[in-house]
C-alpha cells in the first residue's frame, strides 16, 4: 500500500504533494499504536501441537519439539572413597507419570576413566543382575525382552564419558530403578586430591554434512542432531534439552564417604554446598546441603592433606582370577631444579568463541587469557587464535611479546564474544602448523568447553601434526567434555586444567603457569628387577609436569618384587627404585588396569590402527573384567512378562537441562528474523520530505518578519 502512494508522489504537483503527505502521515501515525502495542484482534488462543490429553505433562524443548509425559528421573549418587580409589554407585529412578506403558531412554555422562562393571535392575524389592554381552547381542537380548513385555534395562557406552540407559516396560505410575556402579582412581595434582562427577551431557556441536536420508532406526537416533559425515553417531550423543523457561529437571542427591588416610587441612565442594562430618575413625561423611541439586553442572570435591602428610608413593594390590594386579603412585621430586633459568617460549593461545561459550564461560576464558598474556616475558613470542564457525588469528604469525603487542592482544581478548559453530579442526591445524624458533619451547594453550562430537578426528589431527609442539587444554565452563580435555592433552604431550567459575581462574591458571615454566620429567620408562614380567598400563607413560604423580597399573602372573623408574629430568637422567612389597589390598584394582588397557587400545585407533584390529582385544578384556566399552554393554532382563501384549509401548527420551550458565539461543538458534526495514525507510522518507517542506515554510514565515519590523 505505501508503494502506491509513493508512486503518486512523483505524478502530483507540489500542492498535491503536501496534501498527500499529510494523508500519509496521518495514516502512519494511525498505524503506530497498533505497531507498538499487541493487537488483541490478531491473537488467537495459544495452541499446542498434536493432541494433548488432559492431565499429561508437556515440556517444550530448546533442542526442538516437545516431550510428552517423559518419565521423571531422579538420581542418587553414593561415593565410597578410600586412599586413591573410589567406588561409585549411581541410582537412576525412572518414574512413568503417563497413562501408557513406557520405555525410558536417558543419555548421561560419567567420568571418562570410569570402569563401569555393574548394572542392576530393581523392580520393587526384586533385583536382577545385569550381564556383560557384546554390544549387538546385548541389544538383541534387550529388544526381545521389550517385545515380550518383560522389564529390562540396557547400559551402553557412546563415548568414554557418555552412556545411555534404556529401561523397557515401565507401567503407568510405576517406578523402576537402575543401579550402575563403577571404579575410578582419584586425580592427584599439586598435592591436591579431587574427584569429578559430571551431571549433564552438554549440547555438542556436530560438524559435517548430514548423512543421506535418515534410515529407519530402532533403538538409537533419539538425539536432536542428525548423523553426519564427521559424526556418524551424532543422534546418540545429543539428548533432548528442555526449554530453560520450564526451570530445572532431573534432581540428584550425592552422598560421600571419604577415608583419606591422612589428616586434611581443606575439604571443599567446588560448585555445590555440602555438609560434612567426621567420625571417630577419621572418615568424612558428606551430603548436599539442600538435599538435592539439578543435573546441570559438574560436581567436584577436592581435599588437601595437612603439611608434610601428602603421600609421596602409594601402592594398591589385588589378586584376582589367578593374576596379581597393582596400582602404583610415585611422586617425582618437586623442587629438584626449581631455580633453573627459564627458557624463552613461543606460546600460542587458542580460544573457543563458539555459541556454547556464551555467558559465564567466555568470561572465564577471557579472564584466564588476560592473566596468561600478562605473564609473558619480553623474550617470549606469542599469538592468539580464536575460532567459532571460522578461525582467525590476531597476528599472521607469532610475534615478540613487546609491551605494545601485549597491549594489542589484551584489547583483542577483551573484545571477544561468543557466537556461532565450533569448527575446531581448522583452529587446531593453524595452531600446530607452525614450528617454534630454534631452541624455543612451543606451547599451544587451548581454552574450550570441548563441546564437539568429532573427538576422534581431532585426536587424530593432534597426533599427526603435533611435531615438537606441546598442547595444554583448559576446560572451561560448567560441563566441559572431560574426555576431550584429557585425551587431547595426552596426545598433545601436555596436561589439562579445569576452570568452572570465574573465582577459580587465578588459582588454576597459576598452577598451569608453574607447569609451563618448570622442567618436566620426560622419557619415563619402567624396568622390572630380577627378570619380572608384567603388563604395565598406560603403555606409553606420559611426560610429567610439576606436581603431577606417576600413576601406573600393572598385571603380572608372578608378584613383582622390585622395579626401577627412570627418566630425564631437566636434561639430566633421573631414576628411582621402588620396593613392591607390601601395599594395601584393595578390591577393584583389576578394573583400573583393564580400563587403562582398553583406553590404550582405543588410543591406537586415533594413531591410525584400523578398528577391526583392536576390537577383538578390547572385547576379550571387557568380557573378562565385565566392563562396559564401545563394544560391550550390560543388559538385565526380568523373567516374567509385565506388560499385557495388547497394550502398546511408548518410547520416551528423558530431557536434560541446559548446562548452568549457557544460553539456549546461542546453541540452538532462534526462530528466523523476518521483517524488512521497508516500513522504516518509508517513515524516514516521509519525515525527510516533511522536514524539507517545513524548512521552506519556516523560511517563508521568517521572510515576513523583517518586513514588518522595518514597517513599524
Amino acid at each position, binding site marked *: 500500500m*505505501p*508503494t502506491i502512494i509513493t*508512486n503518486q*508522489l512523483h505524478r502530483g504537483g507540489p500542492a498535491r504533494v503536501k496534501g498527500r503527505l499529510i494523508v500519509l502521515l496521518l495514516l502512519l501515525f494511525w*498505524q*503506530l499504536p*497498533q*505497531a*507498538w502495542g*499487541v*493487537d488483541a484482534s*490478531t*491473537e*488467537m*488462543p*495459544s*495452541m499446542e*501441537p*498434536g493432541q494433548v490429553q488432559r492431565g499429561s505433562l508437556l515440556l*517444550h*524443548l*530448546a*533442542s*526442538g*519439539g*516437545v516431550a510428552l509425559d517423559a518419565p521423571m528421573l531422579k538420581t542418587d549418587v553414593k561415593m565410597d572413597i578410600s586412599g586413591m580409589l573410589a567406588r561409585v554407585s549411581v541410582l537412576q529412578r525412572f518414574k512413568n507419570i503417563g497413562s501408557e506403558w513406557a520405555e525410558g531412554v536417558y543419555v548421561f555422562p560419567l567420568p571418562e576413566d570410569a570402569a563401569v562393571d555393574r548394572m542392576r535392575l530393581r523392580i520393587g524389592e526384586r533385583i536382577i543382575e545385569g550381564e556383560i554381552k557384546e554390544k549387538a547381542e546385548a541389544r538383541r537380548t534387550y529388544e526381545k525382552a521389550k517385545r515380550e513385555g518383560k522389564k529390562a534395562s540396557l547400559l551402553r557406552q557412546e563415548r568414554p564419558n557418555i552412556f545411555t540407559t534404556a529401561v523397557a516396560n515401565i507401567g503407568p505410575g510405576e517406578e523402576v530403578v537402575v543401579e550402575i556402579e563403577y571404579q575410578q582412581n582419584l586425580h592427584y595434582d599439586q598435592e591436591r586430591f579431587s574427584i569429578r562427577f559430571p551431571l549433564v551431557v552438554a549440547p555438542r556441536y556436530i560438524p559435517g554434512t548430514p548423512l543421506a536420508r535418515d534410515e529407519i532406526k530402532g533403538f538409537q537416533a533419539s538425539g*536432536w542432531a542428525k548423523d553426519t559425515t564427521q559424526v556418524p553417531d551424532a543422534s546418540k550423543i545429543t539428548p533432548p534439552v528442555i*526449554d530453560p523457561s520450564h526451570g530445572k529437571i532431573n534432581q540428584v542427591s550425592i552422598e560421600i564417604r571419604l577415608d583419606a588416610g591422612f589428616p586434611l587441612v581443606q575439604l571443599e565442594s567446588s560448585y555445590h554446598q555440602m555438609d560434612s562430618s567426621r567420625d571417630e575413625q577419621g572418615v568424612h561423611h558428606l551430603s548436599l546441603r539442600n538435599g538435592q541439586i539439578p543435573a546441570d553442572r559438574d560436581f567436584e570435591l577436592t581435599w588437601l592433606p595437612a603439611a608434610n602428610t601428602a603421600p609421596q608413593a602409594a601402592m594398591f594390590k589385588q589378586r584376582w582370577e589367578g593374576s596379581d594386579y597393582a596400582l602404583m603412585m610415585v611422586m617425582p621430586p618437586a623442587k629438584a631444579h626449581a631455580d633453573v633459568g627459564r627458557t624463552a617460549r613461543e606460546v600460542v593461545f587458542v580460544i573457543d568463541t563458539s555459541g556454547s561459550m556464551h555467558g559465564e564461560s567466555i568470561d572465564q576464558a577471557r579472564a584466564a587469557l588476560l592473566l596468561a598474556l600478562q605473564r609473558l616475558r619480553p623474550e617470549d613470542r606469542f599469538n592468539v587464535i580464536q575460532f567459532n564457525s571460522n578461525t582467525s588469528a590476531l597476528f599472521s604469525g607469532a610475534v615478540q611479546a613487546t609491551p605494545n603487542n601485549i597491549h594489542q592482544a589484551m584489547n583483542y581478548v577483551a573484545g571477544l564474544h561468543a557466537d556461532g559453530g565450533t569448527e575446531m579442526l581448522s583452529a587446531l591445524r593453524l595452531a600446530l602448523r607452525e614450528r617454534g624458533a630454534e631452541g624455543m619451547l612451543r606451547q599451544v594453550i587451548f581454552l574450550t568447553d570441548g563441546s564437539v562430537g568429532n573427538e576422534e578426528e581431532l585426536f587424530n589431527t593432534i597426533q599427526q601434526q603435533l611435531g615438537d609442539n606441546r598442547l595444554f587444554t583448559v576446560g572451561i565452563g560448567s560441563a566441559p567434555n572431560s574426555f576431550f580435555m584429557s585425551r587431547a592433552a595426552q596426545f598433545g604431550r601436555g596436561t589439562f586444567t579445569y576452570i568452572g567459575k570465574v573465582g577459580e581462574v587465578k588459582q588454576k591458571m597459576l598452577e598451569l603457569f608453574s607447569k609451563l615454566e618448570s622442567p618436566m620429567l620426560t622419557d619415563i620408562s619402567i624396568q622390572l628387577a630380577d627378570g619380572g614380567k608384567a603388563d604395565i598400563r598406560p603403555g606409553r607413560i606420559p611426560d610429567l609436569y610439576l606436581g603431577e604423580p606417576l600413576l601406573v597399573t600393572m598385571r603380572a602372573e608372578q608378584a613383582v618384587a622390585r622395579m626401577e623408574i627412570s627418566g630425564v629430568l631437566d636434561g639430566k637422567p633421573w631414576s628411582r627404585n621402588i620396593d613392591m612389597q607390601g601395599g594395601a589390598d584393595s578390591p577393584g584394582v583389576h578394573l583400573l588396569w583393564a580400563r587403562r588397557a582398553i583406553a590404550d587400545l582405543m588410543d591406537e585407533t586415533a594413531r591410525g590402527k584400523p578398528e577391526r584390529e583392536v576390537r577383538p582385544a578390547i572385547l576379550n578384556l571387557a568380557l573378562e573384567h565385565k566392563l562396559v566399552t564401545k563394544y560391550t554393554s550390560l543388559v538385565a532382563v526380568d523373567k516374567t512378562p509385565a506388560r499385557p501384549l495388547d497394550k502398546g509401548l511408548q518410547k520416551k527420551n528423558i530431557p536434560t537441562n541446559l548446562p548452568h550458565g549457557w544460553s*539456549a*539461543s546461542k546453541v*540452538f*538458534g*532462534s*526462530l*528466523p*528474523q*523476518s*521483517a*524488512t*526495514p*521497508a*516500513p*522504516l*525507510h*518509508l517513515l*524516514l*522518507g*516521509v*519525515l*525527510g*520530505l516533511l*522536514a*524539507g*517542506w517545513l*524548512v*521552506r515554510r*519556516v*523560511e517563508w514565515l*521568517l*521572510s515576513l518578519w523583517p518586513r514588518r519590523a522595518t514597517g513599524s
Partner: protein
Amino acid sequence: MDRHVNRKPIVALVSATCLLFGAWQLGQGAWLEAKARLAQLLLQQAWSQTLDGSRQVRPWPGADTWPLARMQVKRLGVDQIVLADASGRSMAFGPGHVVGTGELGGGGNSAISGHRDTHFRFLQQLQTGDQLQLTLRDGVMHGYQITGASIHHKDETWLLGETKNEQLTLITCYPFNAIVPGGPMRYVVQARAVVF
C-alpha cells in the same frame, strides 16, 4: 538586511538535504517492496522450468537459492514460490524453507518463514480451517488445513522440532505493523496435512 540575504542559501541547502534524504529513503523502501514483487515473477518462471524436470533452477544469474515449492491459499489469492532457505538474503525474494526442519511434504514438521511486511503479510488474515496447498518439485500437490496461530518469543525453538504427524509451521515477525525490524516476537501459524 545582511542576515536576510545570507540565510537563503543555507535554508535552501537544509531543505534540499531533507528532501533528498526523504526521497532516498522512500526509494529504498519502494525498492525492497518492488524487489519482493519482481522476484516472485522471475521465480514463477523458474518454477515452471523446475516442474519441467530440471532441478535447482536458479531464478536469475548469480542467485544462491532456488525454488522448492509453490504455495497457494485460494481464499486469499496467495500464490508464492517458496525458496530453499530462510536466510535474510533469500527472504528478500520470497518465503524460505527453514533449513534443519523437515523436508517439505516429507511427513514431519516443515517450517517456512517469510517477511511480515511483504510475502507473509497475509498470515494475519489466515483463519483456522483455511486450506493451503503446496506443490512440490515433482508436481505432487500436498494439502494442509490451518489449525491455529499463536505468538511466541524468538527463542522458542521447540516449534521447529520434529513431529510425528506431517505439519507445516509458518513463521513471521510480530507485530505486523511495527516500523522497526528485529523485534523478539514471532507470529506462528500451524497447519496439518489433509487430503482434499
